[in-house]
C-alpha cells in the first residue's frame, strides 16, 4: 500500500472544455486549501514538528524534565554507535523484525495457496483463517507470558507431564533462548491481512496463463515458479515492506514478555528508545536513538522498494 505514491498527474485539469475565469479558479483553490487545512495542521503539529524537534533534542543532553539543557553536538550519536547495548538492541530488532517478516510472509503465502486450491467452502475457511488475526500482538503476548511461566505455565506443565522434565525451561528468563522465544511468539500467526493480500493477488492471476502453461507441459512447480510467483511480486513487495517497517518498531511483545530482560538481553530499538527516554531520563540520548531508527526505516523502505520493484513483472 505504501508503494503507489509515484506517478500522479500533477497538472491542473481545470483547463478542460469549460472556460474557467481566473478569479473563479483562484477562489476554487482557496476553498480547497481550506479543506486541506484542518488535517494538515493536526498532521504538522503531531508528526512533522515533533520529528524535527527530535533532531534538535538529539544534539542536547536534555533529561526530559529539567527545562534547562545544553547542546553537546554529536556526542549522543557517538555514544549510541559505540554502545554495546544499542548494537545488541539493533541485532535483536533485525532478528525479530526481518525474521518475522520472512516467516510470516512464507506462512501467509502457504496458507493463501492452500485457500486458493479450495473450490468448496473457500469463504468459510478464509474467515476462520483470518480470525486469529483479530487478537492483537499485545493480548497474545500477555497470554503467552502466563503460558510460559516456569512453575505454573501451560507449556512447562505439558512438558513435565510428558516426562520431559529437562525440557521445561525458564523460557523468558534464559539469556540464550529468550530472543528465539520472542521470535516464535511474534511468528505464531497465520498472517491475517498478509494472507488476504496474497489470496486476492492469487485470484487475479489469469487462469488462461496457468492453463496454457499446463498444456505446454509445465509441472505444478514450474507453473508456480514461472507464472504465479512473478505475478505475485507486487504483493510480495507490499507485504515485505509493510512487515519490515512494522518490524523495526517491534515493542509490545518485548514490553509485555520480558521488559527487555534479563538485563538488556532482549531489548529492541523501539524498547531501547522508550527505556532511555522515559525510564532513565536521558531524553536527548533517546532522541538521537530515535533519529537513528528513522534513518534505518527510511533506508529499508527505499531499498526494499527499489530491489523488489526491479523484480516485478509489468503486466
Amino acid at each position, binding site marked *: 500500500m505504501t508503494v503507489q505514491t509515484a506517478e500522479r498527474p500533477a497538472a491542473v485539469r481545470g483547463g478542460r472544455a469549460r472556460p474557467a475565469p481566473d478569479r473563479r479558479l483562484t477562489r476554487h483553490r482557496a476553498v480547497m486549501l481550506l479543506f486541506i487545512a484542518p488535517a494538515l495542521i493536526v*498532521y504538522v503539529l503531531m508528526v512533522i514538528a515533533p520529528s524535527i524537534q527530535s533532531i534538535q533534542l538529539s544534539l542536547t543532553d536534555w533529561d526530559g524534565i529539567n527545562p534547562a539543557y545544553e547542546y553537546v553536538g554529536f556526542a549522543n550519536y557517538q555514544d549510541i554507535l559505540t554502545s554495546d547495548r544499542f548494537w545488541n538492541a539493533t541485532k535483536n530488532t533485525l532478528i525479530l523484525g526481518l525474521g518475522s517478516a520472512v516467516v510470516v510472509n512464507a506462512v501467509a503465502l502457504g496458507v493463501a495457496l492452500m485457500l486458493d486450491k479450495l473450490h*468448496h467452502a473457500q469463504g468459510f475457511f478464509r474467515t476462520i483463517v483470518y480470525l486469529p488475526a483479530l487478537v492483537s500482538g499485545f493480548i497474545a503476548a500477555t497470554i503467552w507470558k502466563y503460558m510460559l511461566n516456569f512453575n505454573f505455565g501451560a507449556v512447562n506443565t505439558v512438558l513435565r507431564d510428558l516426562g520431559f522434565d529437562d525440557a521445561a525451561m525458564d523460557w523468558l528468563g534464559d539469556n540464550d533462548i529468550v530472543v528465539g522465544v520472542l521470535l516464535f511468539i511474534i511468528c*505464531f500467526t497465520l498472517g491475517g491481512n498478509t494472507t488476504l493480500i496474497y489470496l486476492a493477488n492469487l485470484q487475479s492471476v489469469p487462469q488462461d496463463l496457468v492453463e496454457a502453461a499446463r498444456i505446454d507441459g509445465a509441472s505444478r512447480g514450474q507453473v508456480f515458479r514461472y507464472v504465479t510467483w512473478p505475478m505475485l511480486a507486487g504483493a510480495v513487495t507490499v507485504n515485505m515492506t509493510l512487515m519490515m517497517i512494522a518490524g523495526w518498531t517491534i515493542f509490545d511483545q518485548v514490553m509485555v514478555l520480558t521488559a527487555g530482560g534479563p538485563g538488556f538481553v532482549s531489548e529492541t530499538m523501539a524498547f531501547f528508545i522508550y527505556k532511555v*527516554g522515559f525510564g532513565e531520563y536521558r531524553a536527548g540520548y533517546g532522541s538521537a536513538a530515535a533519529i537513528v531508527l528513522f534513518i534505518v526505516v527510511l533506508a529499508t523502505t527505499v531499498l526494499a522498494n527499489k530491489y523488489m520493484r526491479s523484480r516485478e513483472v509489468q503486466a
Partner: protein
Amino acid sequence: MSARTRRRERRRLTAGEVVVMAVLSVLVLAVSFPVLYALLNSFRSYAEITKDPMGLPSGFSFENYVRLFQTTDYGEALLNTLVITGGTLILLLAIVPMAAWGIERLGGRSSRWIYLLFIAGLMIPFQVRMIPLVSSMNQLGLYSTLTSVILVHLGGAASFGILLYCSFIKGVPREVEEAAEVDGAGKLRTFWSIVFPMLLPVTSAFVIIQALSLWNDFFIPLVFLDASSAGTINVALSRMVGLLTSQWELIYTGAILAIVPSVVLFAAFQRYFIKGMSIGAVKG
C-alpha cells in the same frame, strides 16, 4: 472471474481439497490455542489454575468477569478505550476525506507537495516523535488526558488515510460535482452530500482498519497516560501483569474481553473487512 466460479460449482470435492481443509483447520486450532486456553481459564479460580494448569473448568461461572469490573480499573479503562477509538474515528472522518478531496481537486505543484508531505508520515515511526510530544503535552497541560492520546493518534493515522482516500478519489468522476456546483451548491455542501457518499467503499475500509488498530494500540496510551488515569484496556492489563501478585484468572478474563469487540466488528462487517484489506493491495 465468473467463468471460474461456475466451474468451481460443478466440481466434486477432491481428496486434495479435503487434505487442505484438514491442514487449515489444524493450523487455525494451533494458532488459536492461546486464546482458547485463556477463555477456558477465565472460568477458573486462581487456585485451580496454579494447581492444575492444564485442567478444564469445572463449570461456567462468570465470577471472574464480575470481579474484574468490581476489583480493578478495567471498567473505566474499557470506557477510555471506547472514547479514544470512537473520538479518533469521528475526527478522522471529519478531516481526512475532506483534505484528500482538497488535495486531489487543488491541482498544481502545491497539491503534489502537500500529498508527499502527508505520505512521508508513513515512514516516521511513532518513537521518532514521542519524546517531544510528551514534553509539549506536558506544557499544554494535556499530558495523561484522553485528548492527548486522540491528538497523537490523529496525526499518526492521517498519512494512511490520505493515501487511501487520494488513490480512491482519482477514480471518481468530476462531472457530478461540477453539475452540483452549476446548480448552485457550495463546495462544502457538494463535498458532504455528493462526494462523501461516493467514498463509502474506502470509508468502510478505513474505519475498520483504524478501529481495529486504535482498539488494539498499546504504545501510545502507555506513553501518554500515567497512573492518574485508568489507561486503556491494554494499559490496564499491563499494569495488572506488572503487579507483584498478579491475578492470573483476571488477566485471562481481561484478555478475552479485549478481543470480543474485534470479533463482533469482524462478524458484523466481514464482507467489508476482506474487501478493505485487499483495496489497493492488488497490483499495489
